């Protein structure tokens, strides 16, 4: 079942990756203007929907089920429900992608009301989310049952972190679900001819930012629980790890209004408040960077590294997990620095709605996060298939090409954003002197995209060779062990009750008034614009 999740996730990734490269090519100076921009938006919708909803959700679900079995060392409770969740994701994906392929829902994955597409697109997305909610419930239930059966024993850290990610997703998906169920789907079914686009955007922002942290969770879990073990070290601090995930849970969600800095429907006070809490999310990331660097240093010193920097040279750089995590950290550093600009109320105005934003989330998600999805796959595959992955050289080549491709793709992408190139456009007239200077940068991005397609192909080659390898019996899977494994933990660090309470309270403070105000204000709805319909 876990393998089915991973394979479906990577199949979606494999299909959507060339679409992304095609889009980059189409809007570059290497290609003339596309005569029918509808094809471009259709492709962007398919790429975004697959990469943002289907791919990471399935990776998180599959990895979560794996952690639940491997960390709790018992079979998953609710296996049938898990299959039901998987089936809902499959049905939802197919339901959503057919109208997109037919050009009936070219609204981009962020929906952008008052544009309204075919109802089946939205229903499909809802099914994917409902399928993932089953996973959220199963993660919670598995942890609770384990706690009941093992009173007084700390929940294993990998499971604790996974449940934090699941609860974060469960709550953050509520925003988009409200938007879809009460606003967009009624309009798509023709029950309503108007929609409060401002309110819809506020609901979506509830989901839009924390969804990134949901994507990030498997990556962070891999940093903490796979990397130190894979390089022969130990996790520096178990408590610090728990604290990081708790902080993500509490402050990652009520910050989404920083996506609406240029929107008039939210007051400036709330924008500032969300900006403050966005700044706080840097905290768990900095904690993680510190803990992981310390853990890696432990491994380096255990391997005989000496001096201030000598431990770096002693690290097993030929190990794909080490290499992938290091490359991921570099991309996380650059992407995080860029993110500080996005979240600052004033600085954001210089890059709002420019290609900078697209470059930023490709560097963070496509770069720092997805490269760790590859690492997770490489690490788990022998345990999932019972066949060893031996193409270490190919893995290193794949990770390096992904890193180089992503840098070549996104650095010029950020740069043209600073020059003011708007996003979400299908064509750019590079013969116009105003943007002629951007032509070279966009061409570089196309080269980066091509490298990424090659890297994606290498990834599938590695997995395919693994499936063709002879059967082996891998040893039992192990997660990293902390330097001082916890014997007993304060109740607050062994459960989520307190933190879920704080998360919901902060949501009410940060979102309650703007939503209530928009609901109570008459005359805020605008006519819907139906996409793909004959006019």
């Amino acid at each position, binding site marked *: 079942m876990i393998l089915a999740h991973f394979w479906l996730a990577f199949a979606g990734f494999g299909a959507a990756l060339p679409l992304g490269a095609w889009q980059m090519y189409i809007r570059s100076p290497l290609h003339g203007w596309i005569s029918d921009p509808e094809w471009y938006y259709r492709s962007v919708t398919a790429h975004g929907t697959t990469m943002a909803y289907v791919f990471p959700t399935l990776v998180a679900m599959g990895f979560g089920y794996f952690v639940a079995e491997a960390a709790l060392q018992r079979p998953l409770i609710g296996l049938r429900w898990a299959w039901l969740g998987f089936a809902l994701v499959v049905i939802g994906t197919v339901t959503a992608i057919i109208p997109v392929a037919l050009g009936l829902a070219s609204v981009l994955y962020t929906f952008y009301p008052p544009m309204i597409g075919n109802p089946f697109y939205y229903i499909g997305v809802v099914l994917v989310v409902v399928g993932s909610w089953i996973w959220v419930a199963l993660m919670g239930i598995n942890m609770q049952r384990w706690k009941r059966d093992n009173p007084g024993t700390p929940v294993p850290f990998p499971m604790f972190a996974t449940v934090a990610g699941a609860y974060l997703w469960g709550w953050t998906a509520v925003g988009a679900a409200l938007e879809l169920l009460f606003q967009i789907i009624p309009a798509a079914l023709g029950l309503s001819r108007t929609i409060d686009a401002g309110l819809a955007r506020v609901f979506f922002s509830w989901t839009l930012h924390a969804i990134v942290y949901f994507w990030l969770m498997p990556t962070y879990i891999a940093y903490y629980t796979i990397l130190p073990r894979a390089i022969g070290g130990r996790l520096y601090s178990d408590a610090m790890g728990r604290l990081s995930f708790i902080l993500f849970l509490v402050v990652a969600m009520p910050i989404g209004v920083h996506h609406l800095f240029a929107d008039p*429907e939210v007051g400036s006070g709330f924008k500032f408040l969300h900006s403050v809490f966005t700044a706080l999310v840097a905290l768990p990331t900095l904690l993680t960077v510190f803990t992981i660097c310390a853990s890696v240093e432990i491994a380096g010193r255990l391997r005989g590294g000496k001096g201030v920097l000598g431990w770096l040279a002693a690290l097993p750089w030929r190990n794909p997990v080490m290499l992938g995590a290091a490359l991921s950290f570099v991309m996380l550093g650059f992407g995080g620095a860029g993110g500080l600009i996005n979240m600052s109320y004033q600085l954001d105005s210089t890059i709002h709605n420019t290609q900078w934003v697209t470059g930023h989330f490709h560097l963070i998600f496509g770069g720092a996060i997805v490269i760790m999805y590859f690492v997770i796959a490489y690490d788990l595959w022998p345990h999932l298939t019972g066949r060893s992955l031996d193409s270490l050289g190919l893995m290193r080549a794949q990770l390096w090409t992904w890193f180089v491709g992503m840098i070549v793709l996104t650095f010029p992408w950020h740069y043209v954003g600073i020059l003011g190139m708007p996003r979400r456009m299908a064509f750019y007239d590079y013969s116009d002197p105003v943007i002629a200077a951007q032509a070279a940068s966009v061409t570089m991005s196309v080269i980066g995209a091509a490298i990424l397609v090659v890297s994606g192909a290498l990834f599938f080659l590695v997995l395919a060779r693994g499936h063709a390898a002879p059967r082996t019996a891998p040893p039992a899977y192990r997660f990293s062990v902390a330097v001082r494994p916890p014997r007993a933990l304060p109740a*607050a660090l062994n459960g989520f009750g307190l933190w879920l309470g704080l998360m919901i309270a902060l949501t009410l403070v940060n979102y309650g008034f703007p939503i209530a105000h928009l609901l109570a204000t008459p005359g805020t709805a605008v006519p819907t614009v139906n996409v793909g319909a004959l006019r």
Partner: protein
Amino acid sequence: MNREWAAILRSKWFPASVGITAALAIAGLLVGFVVLPLADRNEQFHSVWDAICSAAGLIQNAAREPVVQANYPTTRVELTPRMLRGASAESIGRGATLALRCTMCHGARGLSEANTPNLAGQYAVVIYKQLMDFKTGARVSAVMAPLVGDLSDQDMRDLAAYYAYLPRVPASRPAGEPPQIVASGAPLRSIAPCGACHGELASKPGAAWLEGQPFDYLRTQLQDFASGARRNDIGEQMRNVARGMTVAEIDAASRFYAGLRGPTGSQADASSKQH
């Protein structure tokens, strides 16, 4: 579960986490809703409460600015999507009689031989609006003004119904792709594609059916919109578009809708004379 909650409530984690979160939220609220709005010199708040309301995004009763009036006659026609739909046979017949005075320039069946617009098959709202604009002076023409002076509102509706009823001139599409300005516009200059309003795929109320109109007429109108000589587009939508167009684009769009081949050339001019 309850035992766990009891342990949490007893521990120092509870007051610490709730206290820190609340302190951060209150500090953020104070700075965002009081300190920053009051520090903004461009805003003149009467009280702290005023500043808080503004930061919360409440709609304020701003002083009403007087509406700026144009210093030239503007169109008085309000168009709606369903306007002048379903004309009666009587209306069309009356229109046909009234149209006898138009035949000198616009042709016996609405097809012009004189570089004036072909009216056959034109949208009724377009004819009606232009007639009204000629009458009110929103659109200036030394030839048209005296002719419409004595037309009543119903006369104009009847004329519009009659011309809309006549069959269109058969479209003579030049081979190949339409020019970029027609198909894609010029996004960098905020120029929408001509075809988005005037084309076969999409039409907007009030936008004329342009196919088969004479080249000279189309080019002159675009030049007049650009110079401001014609200004009966109340939202300045055509003036804004035409001002941003290059001479070559005006030429290309006019040629395309006139059904002429190629960007320029004597062959195309010759065929226009034949036409």
